[in-house]
């Protein structure tokens, strides 16, 4: 298949600033393929090194609370019901009923049709466009495969935003990306970003899911990260959680490096969200270390870093209970999800 190299792309502000006003698929391709290759051995070594830090006592207590504040508490099952979403929302508001000092999570993450139930269940705790409270993130664009026409994807997105979603987690078209049709992926992200626009002119935050488990190489992850940022993503997210491997430390480190480079280039801060496969506090703390060492501690805030997780929260709560009570806790003392 020949690619139309001179096809113009949707005008996205960041891409125009970086690549010039004459935004074509050729220019985008030249930029993405001109990115230097990733030193896989070095990357994995660096990630492994960052995973060896010992975080104990007060630092650990701080880290556990911060992890909770960064969690997108997620339920993305075909069997989800309004009741399940309500219990998720109450857990988001009160993670540990036995300890009112436990912080709240950053957001709940649900399918688009569950957004109205999440809005209702969160009630006054819903941030609803403000900086305080719990956000509602909705996965859209035919999550998790992304195999639907653009019209359906945009309708999916607009519907979730209209129902009250504060954040949209979209998936990129991995098929198009892997066949080298970067322009198509780019245009889709721009179009979805546009569909995130609310009636009052503000935008729902857009998280671009790269699904790194399907991208095969670190070079592709780096390219996809740049692509997601250039097209206007507020966050780049590793995975849907439906494909193994999901988030890994090296991949997250690589994405954080892209975000760091973007910051150096433009001064703008992009968020990163590892999702899927992070189940223990120990793992999550490794991610915190990686963030702090790669882009700085200022990134450890809900607007710039999130964990997409469901079972992680219970493990963090067990660790937290261990630290407050001095003895080991057990699954009987946290909710059954």
């Amino acid at each position, binding site marked *: 298949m020949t690619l139309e190299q001179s096809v113009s792309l949707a005008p996205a502000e960041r891409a125009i600033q970086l690549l010039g006003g004459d935004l074509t698929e050729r220019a985008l391709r030249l930029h993405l393929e001109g990115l230097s290759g990733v030193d896989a051995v070095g990357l994995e070594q660096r990630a492994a090194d960052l995973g060896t830090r010992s975080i104990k006592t007060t630092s650990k207590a701080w880290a556990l609370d911060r992890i909770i504040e960064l969690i997108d508490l997620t339920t993305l099952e075909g069997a989800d019901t309004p009741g399940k979403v309500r219990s998720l929302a109450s857990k988001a508001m009160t993670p540990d009923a036995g300890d009112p000092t436990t912080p709240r999570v950053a957001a709940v993450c649900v399918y688009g049709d569950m957004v109205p139930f999440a809005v209702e269940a969160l009630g006054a705790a819903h941030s609803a466009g403000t900086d305080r409270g719990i956000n509602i993130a909705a996965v859209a664009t035919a999550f998790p495969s992304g195999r639907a026409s653009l019209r359906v994807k945009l309708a999916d997105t607009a519907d979730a935003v209209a129902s009250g979603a504060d954040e949209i987690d979209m998936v990129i078209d991995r098929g198009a990306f892997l066949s080298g049709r970067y322009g198509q992926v780019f245009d889709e992200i721009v179009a979805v970003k546009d569909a995130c626009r609310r009636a009052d002119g503000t935008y729902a935050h857009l998280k671009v899911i790269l699904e790194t488990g399907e991208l095969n190489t670190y070079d592709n992850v780096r390219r996809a990260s740049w692509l997601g940022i250039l097209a206007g993503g507020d966050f780049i997210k590793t995975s849907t959680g439906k494909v193994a491997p999901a988030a890994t430390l090296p991949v997250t480190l690589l994405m954080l490096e892209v975000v760091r480079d973007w910051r150096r280039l433009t001064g703008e801060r992009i968020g990163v969200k590892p999702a899927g496969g992070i189940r223990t506090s120990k793992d999550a703390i490794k991610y915190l270390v990686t963030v702090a060492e790669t882009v700085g501690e200022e990134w450890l805030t809900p607007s710039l870093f999130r964990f997409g997780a469901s079972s992680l929260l219970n493990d963090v709560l067990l660790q937290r*209970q261990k630290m407050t009570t*001095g*003895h*080991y*806790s*057990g*699954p*009987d*003392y946290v909710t059954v999800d």
Partner: protein
Amino acid sequence: MSRLAIPKTYKLYIGGKFPRSESGRTYEVVSRAGGFLANAAKASRKDARDAVVAARAAQPGWASASGYNRGQVLYRIAELLEGRRAQFIEEIVASEGGTAASASKQVDAAVDVWVWYAGWADKYVQVAGNGNAVSGPYFNLSTPEPTGVVAIIAPQSLSGGSLSGGAALAGNSLLGLASVVAPAVLTGNTVVVIANESAPLSAISLSEVLATSDVPGGVINILTGSPAEIAPWLASHADVNALDLTGAEALEWVDLQISAADTLKRVLTPVSGVPAPSLDRIVAFTETKTVWHTKSLI
């Protein structure tokens, strides 16, 4: 030319695997005369925590096996123990002292304990359960069900004891372990057991027996190390359902009982020597479930 001895360094038995202690510590196992025998892993509180996680994960599967099946699995342990008796006799003589004959008696007794308890696996429910008479058109049945995860301190004394037949034993490291583990697991509980601290070799060899037997990984977890260090963490652990203090005579066991009470654990108090096989030890770590079922009116 003399041959170079190979001093062994043994590991823990958690979740069907043989991990080193998370702390990296080991301690020297010495014979009664003070000679070096081997290095054993010195378990830390985190190893105990990991063992409880493994035991909890294995518990539902083990409890859902039929009593008949559990009995067969326990009987298989006895068979394997019998098959490796020479090794056990050697280790018992080395670490507890005494003669090969008395060590042989201890192995015999341990095998007998496994067989005795194995036989109860599909019978204790009939004996401990009941059909209750109620004034109404109901069947009312009470049956014992496993408590869950049981933390055990195996008998620690090496001063010996005597078998019911009156034969003297030099020690009880193998028999003691069998006498506390078998009654707890046969009902469907899973256990975390702290082996005899000064004579752990037979417990370690037993874990090698267990690994090659039909016992699912995580059902019996064996820690070597200091009971004084590990027991408080197990006693206060919220995911442990019962505590067997049989070998805690020399510890501050009342304190252990008090911290176990915080999470309403079932507790068995210390016993001197080796507890004799009994149905009471089986029923001690069970919960009674009572079911009401309507009788048909037609």
